[in-house]
């Protein structure tokens, strides 16, 4: 009994960490621009797919992973330059639909160039399961949790201690004021897209060995990431990470104890219930308007 619970917990945390990373990407862009970027899941998919593709073309694994991350970050920059910056001052619904359009284009390009098949990436350090109190898990789970923790710590340092990070936070607080004190808001927006593409790609890469990857993986991952954000309270990066972990664990227990078919439904049902009780999310600071 205990060992199967532990098993659910570990697999839930593992998948949840990547939901959290996706959610983190949403938050970074939302904070500087107020946009929910529906192409966020596509960044995760791109990271995984490009890594598979580069590795298959004969490049050693670490270099392939690095290449995938760099390429995805460039895609993030291109997206901002080509589709977001030209629409300065557009309504948020207009911008959301643009990001949906971009996600369709990215998915289409990957489908046409890399195919519709499902791919696997080799595990980073072997596939010998680690046993713990009756439960067993892959070493990849350790990688996922460690890298997620590392990214969270690095982001925290970045936003709290570096001038650049503080400038980005200033943009999220008040764009006009940030502009007046000399922060280049345009550059911050560009950088936020790159940073969230980077975080998304890392999430996609560390998850790919465990759950396989294909061109249409991004939709569900994006939705779960968005759910993680809302669960944690929109605009709070660490809330998003925690929200992701909670969703992952809920899903894993739901699938194990009730039914695997409804796996995706549990997280959303709990989220709906939470929104009805506490509309600002678990860690939301800002008071959400209620009627």
């Amino acid at each position, binding site marked *: 009994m205990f060992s199967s619970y532990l098993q659910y917990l570990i697999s839930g945390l593992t998948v949840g960490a990547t939901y959290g990373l996706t959610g983190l990407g949403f938050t970074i862009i939302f904070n500087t621009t107020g946009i*929910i970027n529906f192409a966020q899941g596509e960044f995760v998919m791109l990271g995984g797919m490009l890594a598979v593709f580069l590795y298959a073309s004969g490049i050693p694994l670490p270099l392939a992973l690095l290449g995938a991350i760099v390429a995805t970050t460039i895609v993030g920059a291109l997206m901002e330059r080509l*589709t977001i910056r*030209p*629409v300065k001052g*557009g*309504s948020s*619904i*207009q911008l959301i*639909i*643009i990001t*949906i*359009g*971009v*996600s*369709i*284009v990215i*998915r*289409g*390009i990957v*489908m*046409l160039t890399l195919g519709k098949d499902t791919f696997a990436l080799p595990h980073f350090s072997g596939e010998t399961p680690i046993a713990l109190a009756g439960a067993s898990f892959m070493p990849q789970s350790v990688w996922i949790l460690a890298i997620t923790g590392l990214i969270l710590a690095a982001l925290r340092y970045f936003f709290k201690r570096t001038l650049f990070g503080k400038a980005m936070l200033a943009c999220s607080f008040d764009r006009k004021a940030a502009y007046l004190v000399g922060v280049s808001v345009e550059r911050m927006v560009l950088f936020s897209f790159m940073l969230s593409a980077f975080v998304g790609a890392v999430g996609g890469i560390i998850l790919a060995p465990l759950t396989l990857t294909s061109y249409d993986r991004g*939709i569900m991952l994006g*939705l779960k990431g*968005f*759910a993680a954000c*809302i669960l944690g309270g*929109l605009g709070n990066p660490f809330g998003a990470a925690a929200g992701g972990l909670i969703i992952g664990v809920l899903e894993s227990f739901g699938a194990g104890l009730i*039914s695997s*078919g*409804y796996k*995706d*439904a549990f997280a*959303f*049902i709990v*989220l*709906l219930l939470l*929104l*009805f009780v506490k*509309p*600002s*999310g678990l860690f939301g600071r800002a008071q*959400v*308007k*209620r*009627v």
Partner: protein
Amino acid sequence: MLRAISKSLLVPAVFLGLLLVLPFLLSNEYYVSVLILCCINAIIAAGLNLLMGYAGQISLGHAAFYGLGAYATAVATATFGLPMELGLVIAVGGSALVALIIGIPTLKLTGHYLAMATLGFGLVVFIFFNETISLTGGPSGFVGIPRLSLFGVTVQSDLSYYYLVATALALVIFISRNLIDSRFGRALKALHTSEKAAQIAGVDIARYKLMVFVLSAAFAGLAGFLYAHYLTFIAPSSFGFLYSVELLTMVVLGGMATLWGSVVGAFFLTSLPEFLRVFENIEILLFGAILVVCMMFLPQGIVGGITSLAGRLKSRKEESDG
């Protein structure tokens, strides 16, 4: 009074006339089936436009109401053998009832939280369609839905089915138009501009939001009914998240808060893939690209863009005249 009524009837009547003439301009019978789907989508988009364009409330889960309508009538008529008139009542009433139940807590939310809640609701319903295999047939779909026959008349050809859905669309537009010009519509517009001001002016905003949500769900249920009995086969994949997004895009691309906008948007987005089919593989790519480009350069949508262009041309002409 009489003039007002005849005016409010005139526009939908002219529109219906146009719709009915449309098939004669098309050489290929295949296009009639595309037109049927255009009309069905336009019915939902018109309802969603009432919610989004006029009341300013976003819904990312409208495909769920469409699916509920389709599955409700499928189960009622095919599984239980109930008369189709009853199927229609169950489809429209069922969607409206679910909207009422889900709307009470959901519409208390605003902005991205409302988007997430409706999205979550849509996904849960989608998973329900997939998993309750004994009821819905699961992912492989529900087969053997009877063709439409109401009050003893069975609709046989695609062309007569088209006339039926075109009439239904005209009816939906007639209802929406009257609604927008009524006290109800003015309350919605007030609510869109400022919820607080509307509340101070004595508008019961929670009630109005709920009413328009229920109405738009009922339209979607009607569309689901028409869809199920046209194709005689339904599967969950038609009612997923991407379809909700497509509906939202129809409204925004056509032009929010213009009734014609949502109809134009629905016709445009439904027929676009048919035109793009020539390009085979890159169809989906072009679809996404057109979406992005349209939104970048036509922020007010197609109808809004044309209106403002016409306005600009007119003022320029007046300038040169004066």
